[in-house]
């Protein structure tokens, strides 16, 4: 059989510049190194540059291709199998016939993911599985004997032992039965807290939490957001900074209030957006209050390392929200919406993307405010309210993706 040289087909070059109808490359071909000329040109013609790139033959690379277990992904030998795939040629039988050995089949349901020559299927949804060291947010479900049960979106409720929290009055205090009796003064049912996974039960996978750091503990002054947790690299990302402060526009105008907003992203998909609390400024305030009290009692006790813990701890378990001004509240709401939007767009949620989405949202609002001077524009915008919303969404998503 002679070698036939086929002309390169245009339809396969949907990379980069692409056609105007599809501004972005296929979602599942994440790497820009991957292009998709047809199989015939790979095997029989050598186009410089293009021929080197791996590609699936045209019948096997439908856009948004969903695979189910057992389905053949490819039978070309050039591909490597990644997660969620299976190759009949096990390492032990590498000398098997080439045609049979190259067949790669799916073992999980989901979209195909191509990274250079690596084919993998990563399921989109997976439940949060706690592992040691995770920063999680949780909600108290019940108060048990010497422990709380906490919902952390895992298959089983986590437990928070009384001995794993900071009690007022020093770290080295003994936990007595009196503490057990007044457990509800620390955490009640429905309270939200941020904690770290201290251990995971071997037999049943129940997570044990701890809040033995000033970074952890009860949450207040904010809003709870629930998004999809880990899974396929979307949702909240592990191993990045998960508690950070965003400098919002609320503080830029008037001098009152720093305008900063704290964001805590739990790897379990629970997030908390709240008014920024500056520990130092807070401690100073407390010190003043403490001094005032102590002055009344006739003794002068300043702030020192010995009573710092006490001063702070008494406020840790308060459920009373502070006064939050309107502008800060608005920015908190905006950040919450941004986080939800990122989750809806199946994007990574970390410090970087949240800040990008937030600044895009602010920018878009600025432009809308310019529009409002023009009465016709306002009327038109009101008529197309839904369109504006989706336009806003699109812009935020593009800002995050484009910057990445």
């Amino acid at each position, binding site marked *: 059989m002679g070698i036939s040289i086929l002309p390169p087909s245009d339809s396969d070059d949907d990379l980069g510049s692409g056609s105007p109808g599809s501004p972005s490359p296929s979602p599942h071909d994440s790497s820009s190194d991957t292009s998709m000329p047809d199989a015939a040109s790979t095997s029989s013609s050598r186009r410089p540059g293009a021929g080197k790139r791996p590609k699936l033959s045209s019948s096997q690379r439908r856009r948004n291709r969903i695979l189910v*277990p057992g389905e053949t992904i490819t039978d070309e030998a050039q591909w490597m199998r990644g997660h969620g795939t299976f190759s009949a040629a096990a390492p032990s039988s590498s000398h098997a016939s080439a045609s049979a050995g190259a067949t790669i089949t799916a073992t999980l349901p989901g979209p195909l993911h191509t990274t250079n020559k690596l084919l993998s299927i990563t399921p*989109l949804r997976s439940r949060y599985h706690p592992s040691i060291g995770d920063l999680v947010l949780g909600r108290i479900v019940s108060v048990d004997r010497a422990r709380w049960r906490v919902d952390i979106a895992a298959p089983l409720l986590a437990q928070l032992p009384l001995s794993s929290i900071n009690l007022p009055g020093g770290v080295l205090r003994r936990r007595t039965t009196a503490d057990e009796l007044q457990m509800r003064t620390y955490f009640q049912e429905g309270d939200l807290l941020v904690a770290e996974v201290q251990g995971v039960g071997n037999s049943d996978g129940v997570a044990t939490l701890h809040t033995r750091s000033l970074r952890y503990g009860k949450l207040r002054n904010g809003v709870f957001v629930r998004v999809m947790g880990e899974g396929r690299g979307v949702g909240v990302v592990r191993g990045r900074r998960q508690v950070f402060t965003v400098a919002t526009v609320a503080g830029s105008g008037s001098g009152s209030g720093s305008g900063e907003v704290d964001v805590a992203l739990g790897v379990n998909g629970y997030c908390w957006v709240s008014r920024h609390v500056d520990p130092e400024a807070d401690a100073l305030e407390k010190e003043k209050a403490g001094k005032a009290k102590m002055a009344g009692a006739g003794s002068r006790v300043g702030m020192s390392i010995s009573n710092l813990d006490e001063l702070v701890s008494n406020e840790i378990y308060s459920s009373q929200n502070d006064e939050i001004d309107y502008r800060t509240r608005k920015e908190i709401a905006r950040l919450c919406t941004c986080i939800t939007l990122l989750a809806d767009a199946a994007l990574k949620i970390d410090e970087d993307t949240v800040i990008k989405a937030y600044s895009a949202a602010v920018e878009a609002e600025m432009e809308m405010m310019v529009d409002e001077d023009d009465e016709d524009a306002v009327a038109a915008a009101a008529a197309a309210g839904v369109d504006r919303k989706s336009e806003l969404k699109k812009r935020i998503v593009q800002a*995050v993706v484009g*910057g990445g």
Partner: protein
Amino acid sequence: MADKRRINGPASGTAIPIFTPSKSGAHTLQRTRKPNQLRKIYLQPGVVPTASGSAYLELESLCHPSSLLNAVPSSLKLSCVIHGPKPLPRNANFSSNLQLTINVKFAPFATRQRRGYIRDVTERDIGTHVETALCGVIVRDRWPKSAIDIIITILEAEDDVQWGSGTQQQNTVGGLGNMNVVSGCITVASAALMDAKIDCLDLITGGVAAVVPKDDGKFVHHLDPSVIEEPFLNSACVVGYMPARDEVTLVWTRGNIPSYSDGQTCRFDSLLDSAVNAAKGAHVILRQVATELAQAESTKLIIDESKT
């Protein structure tokens, strides 16, 4: 069966005694489906939110239109829950493969003959069959030092013998009801494994076929036979089958293959083929369910994660 810690219901159902003129064989439901037509299947993955994976399977209910005596509908309702993969206990020996624990349990009300709360021999036997079928499909070396629990609850099933038929069924092979249960268990466990995102070589399904005598002395293969539709059958076979690999991981046959005088061949492998065809029919459903599941999850995916 005697479980002294609980107050058990009566061992068998207490039906109101209705005395009707005996019409032997009249209570049998005539099979109206074609020999190669399966009962309708309802399959829903992800029914238990707290489990890693779960699925529910229900077969079309066949009911007597007229007879009160045999008003028990013939149906199959199964739910499967998967927990894990979770690490093996610290004191367990090292295992490079995923450890499967299969727990099959009839609900006490699942069949006309009430079941106990403690697993009996039949349930363990069904569990062994299902485990054999699933061991071949799970890529077990993907999960070393781990275990999964597969818990299948049978909410409704057929009795092995037709109720009220007495000893007239001389030709009937026992265990057809259990075979249907095994087949359903394999299919529902496959859907739950898919929901739990545990690596599987293929979507395995179960299928049942039976050799049924016809009036003219010949024999016909019925796919997906139901106990109340088949008063007489010679043999029955259940398989666990992987269509994409064309592999059978479980075969369980009962009865004997009839011999012929007219030259028609009826061999074991043709019965096996019929059971495989039944499994292929169920695979169509399972595949559709798998695709819908994956699509539902990916509708949200509009733009891929940015490069890092």
